[in-house]
């Protein structure tokens, strides 16, 4: 194995109001995949941004090949061979694949860009990593997985020696992840060093050679991957044992609350039938793109299905809008909580009361006191960590933001909750808290439809599990004694 390629020492970074990195160190060998883990807010992203030149550390030094360097800006970092593939693929959706790959170092013919050559070279690069993508297509028309491949091709085109992959598999299906793993291993074998940031243990243990843990902006330690297991890693990340990770209590299952028959929406799903009963947590899983979120949106009235009937309490209903859905008692916790769940600049209180505003009115006028009382109650109940309910939602951590979205649904006294990836991007501690809330709600007789890609979560939290494949329900299981392999089997696309 080649020697140390990158060394970062005593990195400290301060933002208004928070010390994001405190004396963090990190080293990276050529031809190595080094995982960087930690809860949300542990400082991984800031650390990476310091390396990629987006942020300037307030103190500390970065050594590349043993020489001290300053990552003044992203361009410098790029020139020094550092390339980042971001969590939300940071490409230009309107521009072509070739252009995305070569932007910033285009092939020029005099003062003009040589588009023909760009397309040819892009094709070569994509072929070299085994990606079958037309260089002339706009990137916006590609799937997330393919957009990441474009990003990798772009990094390669810049002769990157250090590749930062920030949550690369977060939006990928199992199969796409496997493809990405293969490409990452291929790059490692070519001598590229990879920094892998991920919440998924599958990624970490399946791919990494070493792992470094950060906690609360500080450095915890670095271990070869063989010397740690998942439990130990979680322990380092949260610094507290998690005894009851899946606090699932079987609740009494009551009458049917929600059912759909033959629900179809062109291009997304077809002939979907499911039901949710009181007190039941129903898992809905499948690969990303199998149509789960779209089914949820149709049940919630955000998108209209083309065919099929929805029954609430056994009565056929027409759900044309989220408003109608909520009046029928159906609530949705959307997948992207920042974009769809929260009003970030607004206070916790106002976020919580928004769906149920009419309740806090005296006569025609809103009563701040009533709002505050309700919000405080829910904050206690869900243990939302914040100074008080006047704190803006954007100041909260991911897990606490998710709790606020849950709280606003709870304030409306819904009977059916559709939770779309409730723990995605949520740190370990908050995850446990969210599971607990789910259990509690089910115990109160609320029916829960939980969409999730995380197998252990699906199996351990659900009473029943539906699996979707390519827009259709491919299987229904009782969660009792269900194994990951059976679920996967139902979720994986049929091979030719």
């Amino acid at each position, binding site marked *: 194995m080649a020697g140390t390629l990158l060394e970062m020492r005593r990195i*400290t970074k*301060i933002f208004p109001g928070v010390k994001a990195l405190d004396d963090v160190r990190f080293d990276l060998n050529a031809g190595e995949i080094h995982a960087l883990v930690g809860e949300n807010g542990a400082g991984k992203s800031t650390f990476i941004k310091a390396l990629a030149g987006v942020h300037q550390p307030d103190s500390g030094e970065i050594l590349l090949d043993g020489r001290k360097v300053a990552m003044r800006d992203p361009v410098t970092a790029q020139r020094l061979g550092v390339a980042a593939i971001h969590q939300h693929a940071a490409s230009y959706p309107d521009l072509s694949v070739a252009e995305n790959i070569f932007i910033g170092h285009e092939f020029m013919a005099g003062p003009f860009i040589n588009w023909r050559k760009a397309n040819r070279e892009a094709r070569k690069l994509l072929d070299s990593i085994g990606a079958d993508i037309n260089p002339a297509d706009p990137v916006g028309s590609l799937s997330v997985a393919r957009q990441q491949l474009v990003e990798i091709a772009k990094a390669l085109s810049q002769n990157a020696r250090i590749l930062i992959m920030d949550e690369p598999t977060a939006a990928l299906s199992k199969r796409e992840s496997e493809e990405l793993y293969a490409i990452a291993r291929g790059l490692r074998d070519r001598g590229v060093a990879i920094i892998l940031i991920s919440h998924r243990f599958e990624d970490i243990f399946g791919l990494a050679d070493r792992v470094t843990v950060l906690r609360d902006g500080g450095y915890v330690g670095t271990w070869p991957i063989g010397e740690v297991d998942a439990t130990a890693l979680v322990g380092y990340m949260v610094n507290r044992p998690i005894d009851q990770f899946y606090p699932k209590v079987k609740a009494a299952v009551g009458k049917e609350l929600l059912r759909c028959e033959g629900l179809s929406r062109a291009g997304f799903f077809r002939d979907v039938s499911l039901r949710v009963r009181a007190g039941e947590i129903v898992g809905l899983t499948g690969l990303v793109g199998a149509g789960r979120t779209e089914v949820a949106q149709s049940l919630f009235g955000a998108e209209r299905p083309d065919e099929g009937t929805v029954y609430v309490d056994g009565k056929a209903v027409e759900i044309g809008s989220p408003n109608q859905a909520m009046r029928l008692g159906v609530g949705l916790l*959307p997948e992207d909580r920042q974009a769809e769940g929260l*009003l970030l600049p607004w206070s916790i209180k106002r976020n919580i009361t*928004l769906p149920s505003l009419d309740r*806090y009115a005296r006569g025609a006028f*809103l009563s701040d006191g009533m709002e505050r009382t309700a919000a405080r109650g829910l904050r206690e109940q869900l243990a939302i960590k914040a100074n008080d309910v006047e704190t803006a939602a954007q100041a909260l951590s991911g897990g606490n933001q998710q709790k606020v979205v849950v709280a606003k649904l709870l304030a409306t006294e819904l009977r059916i909750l559709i939770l779309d990836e409730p723990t995605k991007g949520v740190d370990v501690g908050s995850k446990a808290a969210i599971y607990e809330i789910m259990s509690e709600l089910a115990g109160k007789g609320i029916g829960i439809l939980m969409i999730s890609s995380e197998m252990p979560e699906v199996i351990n939290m659900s009473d029943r599990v539906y699996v979707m494949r390519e827009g259709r329900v491919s299987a229904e299981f009782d969660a009792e004694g269900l194994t990951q392999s059976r679920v996967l089997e139902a979720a994986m696309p049929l091979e030719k």
Partner: protein
Amino acid sequence: MMKRLARSAGGLLRWETMLIAALVVMCAVFDRQDAARQVAGLAKKDVFNPAVVIKGLRPYMLYSFMTLGIMLILAMGDIDISTGASAALSVAALGVVYQALTGAGIPGGLSLALSLAVCLLTGWLCGAVNGWLVTRFKELFAMIITLATQLFYRGVAYLLLGGKTLTFKNDAAFDLLKRLYNTVQIGDVSLPVMLIAFLAAAACYAVWVHGTAGGRRVFALGTNPKATLYSGIRADRVKFRLFALCGLTGAVTGVFFVGATSSSIRADAMMGYEMYAIAAAVLGGFSTSGGRGSVPGVVLSLVIFGVMKIGLGTLYGFADSMVNLSVGVILIVSTLLPNLLTAAGDALRLRKRRAQANVSSRALTSGSI
């Protein structure tokens, strides 16, 4: 204790407070100038005193009703640049219908009531068409849609009037409209009817916008439309109603405009009024990106614009165009200033933190040696 003090200090820096301060400073400067002019014998009389200014606010209140409508469109993060045109169309409808009705021998009073109803309905309809298009074609911007309807409404107004001016001379019933531009004598002060009407309307708006669930939902929509929709709020319905309401406020502006211009009705009326209204709403604290703003702020900003134009015109002899120039500058500065202050504040806080961090890390280092 300290915290509470800090919070009230923060409250002092609120936009409305700054507007009040600006108004007070402006009045003080104008007052001095007025006195100086009188001493120097340049002025025939006391030009700048409450009575004169309040009465003088009249022409600057013409677009005030429209501002109420447009500010809520801004609060939703949309924009409506067709309101001036839809107001002109409403007024054209008023004139044409009145002419037809009186021509058909229907008594003036009844005709006026009917045609006023048609006028308001036309304004509402114009707004409703905007609202329908905006909610129906979400991929298009309100700016583009209302740009097209602006040309269209104005065009229909021209068609209706055939390019002529409609006047109803010595028509007792129609002359009632002129009274809308009158003043009511209260003590020494003659209060414009329009000012009273506007303040009443603004009060209703303030209560509605800041006190009720409906108002809260408007700001929610401007802050994050998707999350608001997912919170079970009928976003399209809210949007449709606000656009329709905006059209209606345009029609109300139109009715007052007819009163102000001695009941003469023409298709090129109220050209560019929507821009005045947007300027007033923005100075009042509404952001064109939505989610922000207050009704008292807008009332203040309308008064500030009025007082400024009166003062610059009468005391400094600024021409009408110079006044417009000041409006432009104020518009830019009033939005630029908060941005700069925020940026400066952030930088300052950051430097403080850094200094603190350095001290503490130095302390640590020295301790470890």
